[in-house]
């Protein structure tokens, strides 16, 4: 393609800038972390081998690395003992994978019925509910953790209600079920979204054809509908697994001292400055999540089906007068609705209620007053709530300004057919599968501590590092929203514009961009929300500095026993965070975004 001069400059320069940002704030820092684990100046791979050979991390599988020759004998001994399962230890990685698998299953169990309801029934507020399935995804995870504490804690709403009927209290927190339910809170809506959209895309005529050829409704479902839902379900399950595998604040806040995952342990290692072990853990964790992410991407690209000219099936009405209560199907939907309400609304409502409820159950504003008092306090190490709010909003705006152009450029690369663009897309998308802790650690070790570049020592101050880390976490969401819209634009629109005198760049500005405004705004909303809620890397980069954000403040209030056993201040801070997140979403929504990504 012959490009006129302005085009020859604009697109490559943007791409180069994006690559430069990624290399500076992602590939280089993360690469440094990974290198530290691979060759720390001693034996190559020593830290990784050390972890692999440690029963604490790998459980029974550590023998494979510690004493490979002894494995067959060990297995024989174990079998000779009658293969007692109780003797099998899974270690940290085993437990992390185990809880991720349980979480993925729970997400499917909670999300699949939701997809059925949204795809097959019509009821008041269905559209809104469909839009709302995106919300848990952008809720700060530390906020959800606090919400779960407010709901299931010893003084939480759940035990209060049990107390009213003379039961309890039950300790739900700091247990595996608490973590799994919280992960399901996050990932079930993902399952719902994926499967609903697949279900709605099924052409009614396919089912009608099957029926006219003699299939019963159940057979038609099994032969026509199910095979078309399976890819979406599998994709969502894989994603739920990866997200639960890498989950950090949920486990940190709900796992207590007993239950830890790789990510939490990685954070602990960084805190105790055992950076070599941290790096080795980072390598192993990234390898696992990248591998699963690769499977997901391969799988996803293979299942793109274009539905052209299809007619989707009509939905049945959910409420059908007095018959509603006699129809087992509708009753089941009702029961599901109750469970979903408890899981999804419970934590949020509990958070709001706890923030204004004193120990005796009376209304109080003490916790909010406490926040204001903190603001006035000049004591060292105090986290000022208003500063945290201001920081969060400023970082989010900075993230917006960085992540949106980056995301659009990556989308342009992704939709451009040609050699190399697939590879470029993969390289540009890698950040989605690397944990925030690893990015934060890398940034800390490189840019924040200083890097030698051509004889000059480059250091980056805290807030730039935070924005950089947020932008890296956020731009994939811009890309995921923009790419499908971009791919859906008829090439001939751009060609027409060019034959009418527009350069490639002018055509992009006047034709392409106006046509992707809605997904672009949706992507921007994501970027903003991701930044507001980002905890993993911020907690490392904002350490001791003046650049702490709302989620970091929230975690401090949860963890700070000096302000009493009450969750009050944390729930008050959580309510503020919730309000800011919601407000930013409403604002961006008014600007014109819709979340049909």
């Amino acid at each position, binding site marked *: 393609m*012959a*490009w*006129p001069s302005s085009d020859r400059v604009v697109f490559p320069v943007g791409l180069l800038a994006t690559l430069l940002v990624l290399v500076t704030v992602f590939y280089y820092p993360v690469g440094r972390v990974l290198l530290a684990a691979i060759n720390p100046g001693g034996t190559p791979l020593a830290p990784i081998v050390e972890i692999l050979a440690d029963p604490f991390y790998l459980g029974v599988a550590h023998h494979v690395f510690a004493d490979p020759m002894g494995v067959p004998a060990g297995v024989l001994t174990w079998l000779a003992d009658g293969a007692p399962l109780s003797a099998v230890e899974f270690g940290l990685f085993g437990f992390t994978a185990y809880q991720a698998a349980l979480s993925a299953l729970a997400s499917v169990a909670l999300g699949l019925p939701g997809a059925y309801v949204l795809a097959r029934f019509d009821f008041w507020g269905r559209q809104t509910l469909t839009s709302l399935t995106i919300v848990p995804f952008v809720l700060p995870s530390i906020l959800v953790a606090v919400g779960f504490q407010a709901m299931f804690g010893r003084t939480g709403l759940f035990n209060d209600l049990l107390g009213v009927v003379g039961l309890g209290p039950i300790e739900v927190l700091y247990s595996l079920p608490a973590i799994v339910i919280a992960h399901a809170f996050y990932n079930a809506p993902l399952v719902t979204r994926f499967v609903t959209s697949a279900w709605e895309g099924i052409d009614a005529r396919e089912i009608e054809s099957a029926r006219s050829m003699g299939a019963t409704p159940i057979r038609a479902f099994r032969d026509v509908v199910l095979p078309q839902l399976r890819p979406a379900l599998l994709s969502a399950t894989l994603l739920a697994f990866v997200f639960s595998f890498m989950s950090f604040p949920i486990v940190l806040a709900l796992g207590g001292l007993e239950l830890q995952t790789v990510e939490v342990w990685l954070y602990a290692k960084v805190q105790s400055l055992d950076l070599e072990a941290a790096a080795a853990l980072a390598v192993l964790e990234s390898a696992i999540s990248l591998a699963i992410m690769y499977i997901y991407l391969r799988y996803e690209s293979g299942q793109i089906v274009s539905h052209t000219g299809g007619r989707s099936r009509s939905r049945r009405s959910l409420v059908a007068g007095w018959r509603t209560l006699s129809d087992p199907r509708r009753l089941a939907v009702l029961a599901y609705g109750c469970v979903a309400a408890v899981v999804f609304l419970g934590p949020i409502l509990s958070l709001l209620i706890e923030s204004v409820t004193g120990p005796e159950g009376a209304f109080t504003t003490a916790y909010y007053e406490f926040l204001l008092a903190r603001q006035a306090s000049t004591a060292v190490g105090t986290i000022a709530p208003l500063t945290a709010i201001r920081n969060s909003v400023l970082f989010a705006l900075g993230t917006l300004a960085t992540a949106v152009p980056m995301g659009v450029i990556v989308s342009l690369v992704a939709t451009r057919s040609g050699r190399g663009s697939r590879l470029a897309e993969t390289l540009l998308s890698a950040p989605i599968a690397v944990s925030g802790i690893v990015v934060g650690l890398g940034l800390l070790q490189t840019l924040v501590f200083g890097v030698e570049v051509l004889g000059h020592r480059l250091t980056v101050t805290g807030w730039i590092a935070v924005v950089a880390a947020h932008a890296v976490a956020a731009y994939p969401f811009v890309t995921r929203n923009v790419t499908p819209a971009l791919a859906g634009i008829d090439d001939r*629109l751009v060609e*027409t*514009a*060019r*034959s*009418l005198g527009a*350069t490639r760049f002018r055509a992009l500005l006047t034709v392409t961009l106006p046509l992707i405004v809605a997904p672009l705004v949706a992507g921007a909303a994501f970027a903003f929300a991701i930044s507001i809620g980002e905890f993993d890397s911020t907690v490392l980069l904002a350490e001791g500095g003046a650049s702490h954000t709302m989620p970091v403040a929230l975690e401090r209030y949860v963890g700070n026993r000096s302000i009493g056993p009450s969750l009050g201040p944390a729930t008050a801070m959580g309510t503020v965070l919730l309000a800011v997140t919601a407000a930013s979403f409403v604002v961006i929504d008014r600007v014109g975004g819709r979340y049909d990504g």
Partner: protein
Amino acid sequence: MGESTETGVELEDVSVSFGDVPALSDVTLSVAEGEFFTLVGPSGCGKTTTLRTIAGFETPASGTVRIGGRDVTGLPPEQRDVGIVFQNYALFPHMTVRENVAYSLQYRSAPGDTDSEERVAELLELVEVADLADRRPESLSGGQQQRVALARALAPGPDVLLLDEPLSALDARLREQLRLEVREIQRELGITTIYVTHDQAEALAISDRIGVVNDGRIEQIGTPEDVYRNPATRFVAAFVGENNVFDARVDGDNQSLTIDNERIDLPQSPPTRSDVTVCVRPEDIHLGSGEVTLSATVVHVEFLGDAYRVHCTWNGHSIRVRTQREPDGEDVTLGFDAADVTVIGAE
């Protein structure tokens, strides 16, 4: 439109390939200034690729594209002064009709002394959609959208108008009406126009000259009458209009040829080759005997309104006959004049 300089289009040995797949092979053609030239061929034959190469959307692997004598092979589309209309209209959905038509005027000044507002009004008048100026494309019918697309392509006063199956998405009646209007507008403006269609009847009806494209090559270029009456290749004979095509052998005396065992005396000498392809149009064959008479069997009769199309078999060949009279029974006698047999020349 403005001062009219030389605006003809020339392609010289142009080859285009997509990866390893050749799409055009050594295409050479020359369209005169003000001419209405049609590329016709089956889908996938390369006619659209030819158009896109002229517009600058495809870069030839070899060969030269000239517009008005100027080599534009390496120029990007926006520097070519070429207007294009696509089958799916490709109206900008986020702009009104008026904004669509005015789009090019931010890059190119309107021809003549008109300002852009006047220019847009004038064009909307020309294509008879002036009352739709403030509507959005999605609220227009297909025909209206196509008129707007035409006005938009004409707005900057391009040297060349390229029409890529512009009428194919419309229903038959509207298609015939619009093709008349397109032709009228083209005559009025005197703009060099290249039209792409898979519909050979449309090509015959609308064009000054036709290029028949097959498999990335141009098989024949000529006036509609020329292409219809003297097809240069077997493909052209079969593709343009209805035809009955046979293999034949030139007899030793060079005055007659034989299809199977049927001897046909020829008014003029056939080419001095022993094997040739010949064709006879269905409308040149009648029921009853003639200079050449065949005994055939009727397979199927279609009533077309103004005539019957009779499908027959003769010696294992299928023959179509267009006649005003319905055949009486299964066995018919078919006759035609030797002068109506066209010799194509063996491939």
